[in-house]
């Protein structure tokens, strides 16, 4: 029997549905964007923490297992299985968005706009078994539960070698080099949360995918263990962290947290391919930061959004994600769907062990300034009026479109001439005509 040890946090971004703003259909982002991606929701206030973990496991369910270091032994009631839709909603709400404006008739005035979320992330998790042999290896099975479709074990151990032997004997394929990492967590007093799919329960429940696992605990450690997951990683992995806090924005204390470039005006064709744009831009930004930064993609008070890529999460959804300070609301009472007193920070990182040697450590700041990854499409005005303003407008339009091409090239690393080609900026391929020195036009035939 071969099981994967997907330790730590792996996330994947799959295609998402498109939510339009104000009834306009703008673009769709399909197909999964990022491979090897995990999503984690971290709810935290004081030392109380609720983690929801999802990853993009695509193989046979019976081969799926995760091993996650946790700070405390968890009781049955501290473990829960969440609906995947919650994460999808959170993803849609916070995803980088495309906004459309229509240039007004320069001789008149009008304005529309709409938002489209970028492609989104999705995820799931997995599994473990137990034996008496454990004791002789110095492994203690602290607890054993079946929660939803998962069989869960909480293990502690005296020695990493004993733990490793136990895991191997119980069918977990341990990658080379994991022992050292396991040992370092053991010495820090961490327990191991091992989960795998209970196929019987799984078929009874009838889900075709793995639902996210949730754990609630109280610990001063505000961190995510990523080291175990990097041991057998084939390449860089993708992680989305949604931090839901009370006070304000969350940032990493041991890595730079950098805002994703935002509010850039980009060519219209991106509308049809927003997913590729987001992916290419993220890759380019990772490169620019030498893969040593965590990106802030969204920071917003959960009570509202502007523009909304999706509605804010309801109080009920937030409670399901573990936001324990939000009151349950009677739906009959109505009122705002968005909950108050919840601040969302969406962090996105691409990591490997060379650039992220240490686990992620976070802190909550009192910063409540809003931030969103927002990209702007400006539709030219197509009228044929010929007032002076319209002539000026047309002159400026060419320059503006070339600027958009250059912005897009700089954000994504795409070739600027290819971009110009896609934009049909024929004249601009050799530079915009408007930029010609004034004297070139004097004696032109």
């Amino acid at each position, binding site marked *: 029997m071969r099981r994967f040890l997907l330790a730590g946090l792996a996330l994947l971004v799959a295609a998402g549905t498109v939510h339009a703003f104000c009834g306009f259909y703008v673009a769709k982002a399909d197909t999964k964007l990022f491979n090897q991606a995990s999503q984690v929701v971290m709810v935290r206030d004081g030392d109380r923490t609720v983690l929801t973990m999802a990853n993009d496991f695509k193989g046979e369910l019976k081969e799926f297992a995760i091993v996650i270091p946790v700070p405390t032994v968890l009781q049955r009631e501290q473990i829960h299985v969440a609906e995947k839709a919650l994460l999808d909603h959170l993803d849609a709400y916070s995803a980088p968005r495309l906004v459309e404006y229509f240039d007004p008739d320069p001789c008149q005035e009008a304005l529309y706009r709409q938002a489209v979320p970028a492609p989104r992330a999705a995820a799931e998790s997995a599994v473990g078994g137990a034996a008496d042999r454990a004791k002789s290896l110095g492994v203690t099975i602290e607890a054993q539960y079946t929660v939803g479709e998962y069989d869960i074990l909480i293990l502690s151990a005296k020695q990493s070698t004993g733990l490793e032997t136990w895991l191997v004997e119980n069918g977990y394929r341990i990658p080379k080099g994991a022992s050292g990492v396991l040992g370092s967590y053991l010495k820090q007093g961490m327990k191991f949360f091992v989960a795998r799919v209970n196929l019987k329960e799984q078929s009874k429940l009838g889900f075709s995918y793995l639902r996210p696992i949730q754990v609630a605990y109280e610990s001063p450690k505000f961190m995510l263990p990523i080291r175990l997951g990097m041991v057998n990683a084939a390449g860089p992995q993708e992680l989305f962290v949604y931090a839901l806090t009370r006070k304000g924005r969350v940032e990493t204390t*041991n890595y730079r947290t950098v805002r994703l470039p935002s509010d850039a005006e980009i060519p219209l064709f991106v509308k049809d391919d927003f997913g590729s744009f987001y992916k290419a831009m993220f890759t380019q930004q990772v490169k620019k930061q030498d893969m040593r930064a965590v990106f802030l993609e969204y920071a917003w008070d959960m009570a509202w959004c502007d523009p909304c890529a999706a509605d804010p999460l309801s109080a009920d959804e937030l409670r399901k994600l573990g936001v324990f300070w939000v009151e349950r609301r009677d739906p009959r009472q109505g009122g705002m769907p968005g909950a108050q007193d919840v601040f969302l920070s969406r962090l996105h990182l691409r990591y490997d062990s060379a650039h992220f040697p240490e686990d992620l450590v976070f802190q909550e700041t009192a910063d409540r300034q809003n931030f969103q990854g927002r990209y702007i499409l400006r539709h030219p005005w197509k009228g044929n009026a010929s007032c002076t303003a319209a002539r000026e407008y047309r002159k400026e339009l060419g320059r503006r479109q070339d600027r958009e091409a250059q912005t897009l090239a700089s954000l994504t690393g795409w070739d600027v001439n290819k971009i110009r080609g896609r934009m049909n900026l024929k004249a601009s391929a050799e530079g915009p005509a408007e930029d010609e020195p004034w004297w070139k036009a004097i004696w032109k035939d």
Partner: protein
Amino acid sequence: MNGARSSFRDPRLYQILMLSCLLVYGVVRLDLEVRPGRAALLLGMVLLTQYACTRLWRLPAFDPRSALISGLSLCLLLRTNSVWLAVLAAVVTIASKFVLRVRGKHIFNPTNFGIVFLMLATGGQVWVSPGQWGSTAFFGFLIACLGGLVVNRAARSDVTYAFLAFYLAVLFGRALWLGQPMTIPLHQLQSGAFLIFTFFMISDPKTTPDSRAGRILFALLVALGAGFVHFVLYRPNGLLLSLAFLSLLVPLIDLLLPGRRYAWSRPAAPEPVPVPSLLEERRFA
């Protein structure tokens, strides 16, 4: 400390230049979350407070240099969304060195006190972002700091060396014990906040113990305290908290391990170079 020649040799000018460059780089390139307006406000407020305290305590002359160093350090470290808290931090920072004194010696490094006091008193409305330094900034700043140490031969750099040795021992010792790769402690050291702390805070000659043995003991305690906060309590800002709380022990260390209080008028180095202006000027630093 008289005349243009000696003020040219004032190591604080070098420090001010260094911190200013770092601040400009941080604002322009690093997204350090400090806007030029905020930096100007902090610097203006520290100078104003320094001036007010100079008048209030009837000091012979207004010297902006130490206050500027404190102000620049605040710009680089302190984060808050509230303008008033920023102003308060600047005032508290400078006022602390005039008010909180034991036997003519101020207890806390001003920037350290200003930040820790505001962090604790406001329940986190003020914070420090220790991770916001790229490696370019870190290594550039490291070289500048080490260079400053060599160039200035600051009399009490023993505390900086001792602290570096102890803190490295804590980080690397822990990694060895845990069986972690050495890239982890190396990564943990790559923080600009750590450099500001090591070269500008703990080295503050007016707040460190008088005797060399006392200073080395103090450096050891601060390194252990920082490790305790980070790795036992799992809280951020271990260095700042450790220094602030352990500074309270300095009068006791001075009592147990007495040493000659630094004499302002006398050069620290035996050679006749008017170097120790760092200490001299830092009488109220």
